[in-house]
């Protein structure tokens, strides 16, 4: 009987539980935190384009990242490369506007937003990513590492496509996490560097988060530029926080140590990914935060970054560290362009961003093959490799000529635009000092790539007998290098490139003094390039010997121990304060409780501490087995009347 009853009870209970769960599930569905709607677009281009916009590219790439883990290696990598190729298609053919919008936690979000800026960046990232996956395939990259890399790429593309700050912060943090995993996956030295990398991005991400929150508090929306950007809207401290937070990612001087610290350490194929995605996406976000430009501080920070970067690049003899410092230097040109904020400046910055994705990764690929074949990172231990690996040497040469802005290569066009913006070539404000900073940066770039090329490929006979690049690596390098070359060709190549740029239509654009036409191959520009080249070649002859003996550490690396000790100190301070407060509170409550339960003993002890003049405490001898006896606090009638008189006197004295 009892059994039956208990069974029926449990049955009914489980029924209730089930129905509760069902209700809960329905409620959850109804209150789903993320609701997204694809905006139907009526473009004449047809159904293929509609199909392109149906899928959210970062999700496609992320799905590919998961597939890489489970599919056979070659199929998985192919899927990864194709997913990134689809990003290129989206960037080229999808229409402008908000392609995906919705609400997340009751906030309006636009995770898929296309304009000329995100289109250009996504094009670069997708194109490079496709070949980076091919490169990774033939570079013996493991499937797990490639999965991390693809997840990282997907979050970077998500950040580029973001149309609001909330999505951006989400993607931004995801990018930090996935890239840290990518670094960690290599193990060894990379682990500790990965920690420092994670801390740097954690701080930067927090700053951005603060800024975005403050921006929301002022504007009431997370959407970009509605009604104002961070610089015109919230301004002040939020703007400073945003710029500093993004500054960590775009390697402001002093905030840059994570690049040369981290990028030389993981697998050389991972470096190719790392070099392209975080910093370039962040430069786009910097533009989103300060689209108006005209920020002289920011522009000069760019100039300083260019000079600082090349100086320390020149001093490096680890090949990837040298390239890492060049990331900072190249970002300097982008920051300068965004900071100047004129049409030519912003367009130049974006163009340089695009080119940088290509040639910087190309350089990392080439250097990666040297490391792959020789196992050597140190430049001074290499030499004469052009005989051993001519394809790699050619790829390196294309990358180097692009980054040094030699006429005929894409870097020449975009770097020229930034320099024009600084010199006020097309009207607008003139920043003479900035121009010279960027010019010095250009010389330094020449010098360091002459150094890299000289020591790796030319200097002396080869100590190694090694094979050249594998076929996949060759395909990747020559494709990316081909793009660098084609987009910079005189007369036919560069207008294709400039047409891709935002704010520029074909080669014409609206300058401050009326319509202007770009002319990168004007005599002046060519003269400048020739001067640069001449100065650099002569300069390298002079400084080569002293340079090889010089070993100057980057003073900014002092930040690493400083961050550690400050972090440890503040952590200890917080926990110790918390512990002290906790102990004090618990002790106080416990003491109060004890006093409440033992009032007589408490009063007795308190009285003993007072001088005998005030309170004379007699030894108590409780007669009832130690139980405290009573306290006599009763005021007599007379004392009460006295107190009444005293109180009345005080009140009358105060009032009358």
């Amino acid at each position, binding site marked *: 009987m009892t059994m039956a009853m208990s069974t029926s009870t449990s049955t009914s209970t489980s029924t209730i539980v089930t129905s509760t769960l069902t209700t809960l599930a329905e409620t959850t569905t109804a209150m789903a935190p993320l609701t997204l709607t694809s905006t139907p677009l009526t473009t004449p281009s047809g159904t293929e384009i509609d199909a392109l916009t149906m899928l959210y590219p970062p999700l496609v790439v992320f799905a590919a990242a998961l597939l890489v883990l489970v599919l056979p290696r070659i199929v998985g990598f192919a899927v990864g490369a194709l997913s990134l190729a689809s990003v290129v298609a989206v960037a080229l053919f999808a229409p402008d506007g908000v392609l995906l919008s919705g609400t997340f936690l009751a906030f309006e979000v636009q995770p898929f937003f296309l304009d000329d800026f995100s289109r250009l960046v996504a094009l670069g990232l997708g194109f490079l990513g496709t070949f980076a996956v091919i490169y990774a395939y033939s570079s013996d990259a493991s499937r797990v590492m490639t999965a991390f890399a693809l997840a990282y790429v997907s979050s970077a593309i998500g950040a580029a496509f973001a149309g609001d700050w909330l999505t951006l912060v989400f993607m931004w943090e995801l990018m930090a996490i996935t890239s840290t995993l990518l670094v960690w996956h290599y193990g060894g030295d990379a682990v500790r560097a990965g920690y420092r990398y994670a801390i740097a991005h954690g701080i930067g991400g927090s700053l951005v988060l603060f800024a975005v929150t403050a921006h929301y508090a002022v504007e009431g929306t997370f959407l970009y530029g509605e009604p104002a950007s961070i610089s015109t809207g919230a301004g002040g401290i939020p703007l400073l926080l945003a710029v500093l937070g993004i500054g960590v990612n775009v390697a402001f001087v002093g905030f840059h140590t994570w690049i040369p610290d981290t990028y030389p350490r993981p697998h050389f194929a991972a470096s190719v990914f790392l070099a392209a995605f975080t910093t370039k996406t962040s430069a786009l976000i910097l533009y989103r935060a300060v689209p108006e430009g005209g920020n002289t501080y920011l522009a000069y920070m760019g100039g300083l970054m260019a000079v600082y970067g090349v100086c320390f690049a020149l001093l490096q003899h680890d090949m990837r560290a040298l390239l890492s410092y060049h990331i900072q230097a190249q970002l300097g040109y982008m920051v300068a362009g965004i900071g100047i904020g004129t049409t030519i400046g912003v367009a130049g910055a974006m163009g340089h961003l695009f080119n940088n994705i290509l040639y910087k990764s190309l350089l990392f690929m080439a250097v990666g093959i040297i490391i792959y074949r020789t196992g050597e990172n140190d430049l001074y231990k290499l030499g004469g490799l052009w005989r051993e690996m001519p394809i790699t040497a050619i790829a390196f040469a294309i990358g180097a000529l692009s980054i040094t802005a030699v006429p005929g290569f894409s870097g020449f066009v975009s770097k020229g635009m930034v320099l024009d913006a600084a010199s006020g070539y097309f009207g607008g404000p003139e920043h003479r000092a900035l121009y010279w900073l960027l010019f010095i940066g250009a010389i330094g770039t020449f010098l360091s790539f002459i150094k890299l090329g000289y020591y790796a490929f030319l200097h002396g006979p080869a100590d190694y007998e090694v094979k050249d690049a594998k076929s996949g690596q060759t395909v990747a390098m020559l494709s990316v290098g081909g793009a660098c070359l084609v987009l910079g060709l005189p007369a036919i190549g560069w207008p294709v490139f400039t047409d891709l740029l935002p704010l520029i239509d074909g080669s014409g654009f609206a300058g401050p003094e009326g319509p202007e036409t770009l002319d990168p191959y004007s005599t002046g520009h060519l003269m400048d390039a020739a001067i640069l080249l001449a100065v650099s070649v002569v300069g390298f002859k002079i400084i080569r010997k002293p340079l090889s003996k010089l070993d100057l550490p980057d003073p900014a690396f002092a930040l690493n121990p400083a961050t550690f000790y400050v972090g440890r100190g503040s952590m200890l301070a917080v926990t110790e304060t918390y512990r002290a407060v906790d102990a004090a509170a618990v002790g106080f409550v416990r003491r109060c409780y004890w006093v409440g339960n033992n009032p007589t003993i408490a009063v007795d002890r308190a009285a003993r501490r007072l001088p005998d003049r005030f309170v004379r405490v007699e030894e108590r001898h409780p007669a009832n*087995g130690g*139980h405290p006896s009573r306290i006599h*606090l009763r005021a007599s*009638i007379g004392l*009460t*009347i006295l107190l009444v008189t005293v109180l009345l006197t005080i*009140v009358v004295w105060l*009032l009358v």
Partner: protein
Amino acid sequence: MSDALSEAIPVLLVAAPILAATLPLVFGLRFDRAGWLFTTLTTSSLFVATVVLATVVYSEGTVIHQLGGYPRAYGIELVADRLSTTIALLVTGTSAGVLAYTRLGGPRGNTFYSGYLLLVGGLLGLTFTGDVFNMFVFLEITGLATYALIASGDGPESAVAGLKYLIVGTVGASLYLLGVGLLFMATGTLNMIELAEAIPQAQGGYENTLVRAAFAFVFVGFAIKVAQWPVHAWQPDAYQHAPDGVTPLVAALVSTVSAYALARVMYTVFTVDFLTQTPYAREIVITVGAVSVVAGSTLAVIQRDVKRMLAYSSVSQFGLVVAAYGLVTETALVGAVIHLVGHGIMKAGLFIAAGVIALGYGARTVDEYAGLAARRPVVAGGMAVLLIALIGIPPSVGFVGKWYIALGAVQAEVWSVAAVIFLSTMLTLAYSARLLEKMYFTPANWLEDPHAPDADVVATDGGSGPGLTRQSDRARPDAVSIGMLSIVVVAAVLAVALGFSGDLFYDWLEPFVSEVFN
């Protein structure tokens, strides 16, 4: 309802209990138990009449009766506005409710019930009077009836406590009378409404020395009556040593109505302008109140006798009310009135519960309450709910009052009062938690032990139990009636239910308060 009839209700409310006070004595000559019956009939009808009066006040506004038809200038007025009607409801309701305990719990005898009715009459007179001298008269009637009731306890301590209250309370009333005399010298009138107009027109207006001195005397006089630290000394003795049936009435009503009278004099006679324009006036009121809150709660924490602990708790709760008066904001005044009513209900319930426990369980000290919940679940539960309400945990009337007072303190930007409210809540929690812990979580093992160590404590704690008896000997479980338990439960339910009526209270008092503040 005709105007004449509704105007007559305040007079009836004051005169009826005083006249009825003679009945127990007269009929007592023939019938032993006539007193309880007459008192119950009288107080219940008074309650009904007050409810009727409240509906009239609600629908038609303030009811004013001029005694004997003499005009305001030299006659006496009885005024039933929203504030006085609220207090009258508390007085009549509580006095009717406490009778549920006294029927079997005692004290017995017809003289007691005469005093009881006299006290009710005095309190209602104090509530309705619109004349400051008349207020003194009712203060004395109330006082004398209270002295008699307190002294009606069995032991010698009751007599001493009664004497102490007699002397100290009379000093308080005398100070009030001196203040009234000074006011009369300054203005030549005794009617409250006329005084409010006459005081600003006195020579020097609010700076008139007589007026200011009058305020000082009146305030200190009431500070004694309301039992503010350090002139509270009569109150713990009186509450502790009064018979268990008297304490609920005295604790719930006497100081409450005095506190109401203080508000009436401060806000209707002296007016908000006087309080805000006189230097130190607000500060004095706030300081006395705030100090009482802290001192009262601290003293309550260290008490071992439950009734005495609750008495000190009253010092602290009235301190909160007085401090709220000193804030001079609408919200704080509403909060003070709510807290007066709420405290009256909660303390009546708590003292009845303490009486029931003493009667049926023989427990009087905190230690003796050990294991109570298991043996007397109903009364322990009622007491627990009332204690929790007293702390001010929502939903309870204690929370509503404290909330409005705290809100008023924040509005007036008097952060010290806000801090004191927080502190008092903590201290209230401390002494309530002691009792709750004893009742619910401490087993009562020693009860079975004939050589219990605490037996001595009982002997030396000075409780009103007769001499050297053990707690278990004092317990008379069969003496506890259903009526006693139900009135505790009713008080507990009311304390919680009124916790949902904060807005109702506010809307009800709002017309009065906004009139005072304009």
